[in-house]
């Protein structure tokens, strides 16, 4: 057991501060992984600050889990480096990295009680018995599991098992805790509740967390920063607000904001605005200023919630309300724009004075809420 004491001496300081208060707890440079001809992760780079909650968000096959596994050491990158604190851990075995990991399938040791599971990483580090008992008790209490210490994992519900797994990963205060879709196997209600708990524990203890999920809402609730991944590439790594309001690619605008896309062409630029003529209706739409030359073909991206209904002919386009669905506080409307057979324009407007089916409406938007993406020639 001495080997672990040597490798991660800092964790022996019981309940101490995070071992890498000065440097970045985790940084990843130009990480790349291929399986045969398939590029799973392509040149992923990022720095994660202490106490930060970072999420890799993407569909399955986007490379988010592979990236996490490379950080954990369960799979080896083709190239690139991973640094934990000041140590280059790129080629180290998982057990020598000193990180914490929470798996989707909990993976509690079935032959140990809850307490023994949580104590396991501490016994590896030669922590004295009294100290172990105290810290296990404390940790279980934080997770609301006091009194469950003597039970076997199979006697617990899924949510409780995942709480134990969380305790087991944080009890030894690793500099970074990695979580691979930890709530994926739970039902919606429990997931919402555990998201709040995880966030609360993370903030209370100042944990640095790297989290993987495919659930946008979960990512937004938990994260300080989100890396949106697609086809092995990090599309954008930003705060939730930036991702939402200033998406850098159409994919991000669509994935997070479920944006409407309208084809158009830049007409002119003023000091503060860029004016676009929409291909379909011929209407003019004013966006905040983008650095795009006149004549550039663009995709206009606007989120449904940022569109407003107005009198016909007052907005950038006019159309007929074809669907209007009441969903609690909102009405989701689909507007058929005049002059073309493009998909319905989706609006989300406050319920109460929402449009009704068959009504003629204009559609308007604040220039600040419009994002323009140049369309590549021929694309």
């Amino acid at each position, binding site marked *: 057991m001495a080997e672990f004491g040597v*490798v991660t001496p800092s964790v022996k300081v019981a309940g101490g501060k995070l071992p890498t208060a000065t440097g970045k707890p985790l940084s990843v440079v130009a990480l790349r992984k291929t399986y045969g001809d398939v590029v799973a992760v392509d040149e992923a780079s990022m720095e994660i600050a202490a106490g930060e909650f970072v999420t890799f968000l993407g569909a399955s096959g986007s490379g988010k889990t592979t990236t996490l596994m490379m950080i954990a050491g369960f799979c080896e990158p083709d190239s690139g480096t991973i640094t934990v604190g000041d140590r280059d851990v790129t080629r180290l*075995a998982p*057990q020598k990295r000193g990180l914490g990991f929470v798996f989707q399938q909990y993976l509690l040791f079935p032959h140990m009680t809850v307490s023994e599971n949580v104590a396991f990483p501490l016994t590896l580090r030669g922590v004295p018995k009294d100290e172990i008992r105290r810290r296990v008790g404390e940790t279980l209490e934080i997770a609301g599991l006091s009194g469950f210490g003597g039970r076997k994992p199979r006697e617990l519900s899924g949510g409780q098992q995942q709480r134990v797994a969380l305790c087991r990963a944080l009890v030894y205060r690793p500099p970074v805790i990695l979580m691979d879709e930890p709530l994926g196997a739970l039902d919606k209600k429990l997931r919402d509740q555990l998201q709040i708990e995880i966030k609360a524990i993370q903030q209370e203890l100042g944990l640095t967390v790297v989290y993987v999920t495919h659930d946008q809402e979960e990512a937004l609730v938990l994260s300080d920063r989100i890396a949106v991944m697609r086809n092995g590439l990090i599309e954008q790594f930003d705060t939730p607000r930036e991702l939402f309001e200033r998406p850098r690619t159409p994919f991000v605008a669509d994935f997070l904001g479920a944006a409407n896309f309208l084809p158009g062409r830049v007409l002119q630029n003023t000091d503060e605005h860029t004016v676009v003529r929409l291909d379909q209706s011929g209407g003019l739409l004013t966006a905040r200023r983008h650095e795009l030359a006149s004549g550039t073909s663009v995709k206009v991206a606007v989120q449904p919630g940022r569109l407003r209904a107005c009198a016909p002919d007052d907005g950038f386009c006019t159309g007929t309300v074809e669907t209007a669905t009441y969903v609690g506080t909102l009405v989701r409307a689909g507007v058929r724009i005049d002059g073309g057979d493009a998909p319905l324009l989706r609006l989300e407007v406050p319920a109460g004075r929402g449009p009704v089916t068959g009504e003629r409406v204009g559609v308007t938007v604040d220039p600040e809420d419009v994002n323009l993406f140049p369309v590549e020639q021929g694309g």
Partner: protein
Amino acid sequence: MMELRRTLTGRIALTAIATVILLFLALPIVVILVTSFSNNAFAAFPPDSWTLGWYKALFADGSKWPAALSLSAFVAALSTVFSLIIGVTAATALTRSELPLRSAVYALVLGPLLIPQIVTALGLFLLFEPASMLGSPIAIALGHTVLASPIAVLILVATLRGIDERLEDAAASMGAGRLTIARRITFPLAAPGMIAAAIFSFITSFDEFYISQFLSSVDTVTLPVQIYNSLTFDIDPSVTAISAILIAFAILALALVALVRWLGSGRQDSLLSVENTAGIAAPGGEAV
């Protein structure tokens, strides 16, 4: 078969036939257990009067049984050790690594179970005779291991497959080294399978007849060979008593396996469920 023959007569007929077939399986065993306490060791059933004489005769002076029994036990213990070593390493290779020619290794392991034992026995005779190792308990144990180790491999492969490999990853992520993982995670979880593998290796060797017969000499006679000889040549009535002891021993060993399986499975099924009782017989069934 939910819609078939649900009639009362059909069910009675089915139960009756099943009972007769079960009797067919159980009677030869029951009759030995009963006859071993009978005054007349041959025929005559049920017995007229009872005795413990045959059991006493087993251990009388000049009896061949104690020597055969202890030789068989020694040989079985030895091949259990060999089989466990081979089984643990092979199962690790087959479930926890990237093994080139994996299916060839599997075929090699299944070979001794599929090929007639008499052929294996003949081959071993041809190997050990020139080395003048006939009659050596070591040679017999080595021979038995050819049959017992595949069983151990199959049981342990099934056992290791049943242990989520990611539990070992989880332990590694917390900082556990390879040895610690083996000692504190894999071994405790694999213990029921290892006990089963040991018991089945022991039974396989203990009951093995063909190899023993080819490799034994006048001085080294294993128990099954001694039983066979006493049934063909010198009619020794105490063979009923030794048979009864073997039956008791087998039932005890199976009960132990069933108990270990049941405890290891987290007592999910009842101890007497079909899954549990059938599972005793095919401990490596999932692996094939």
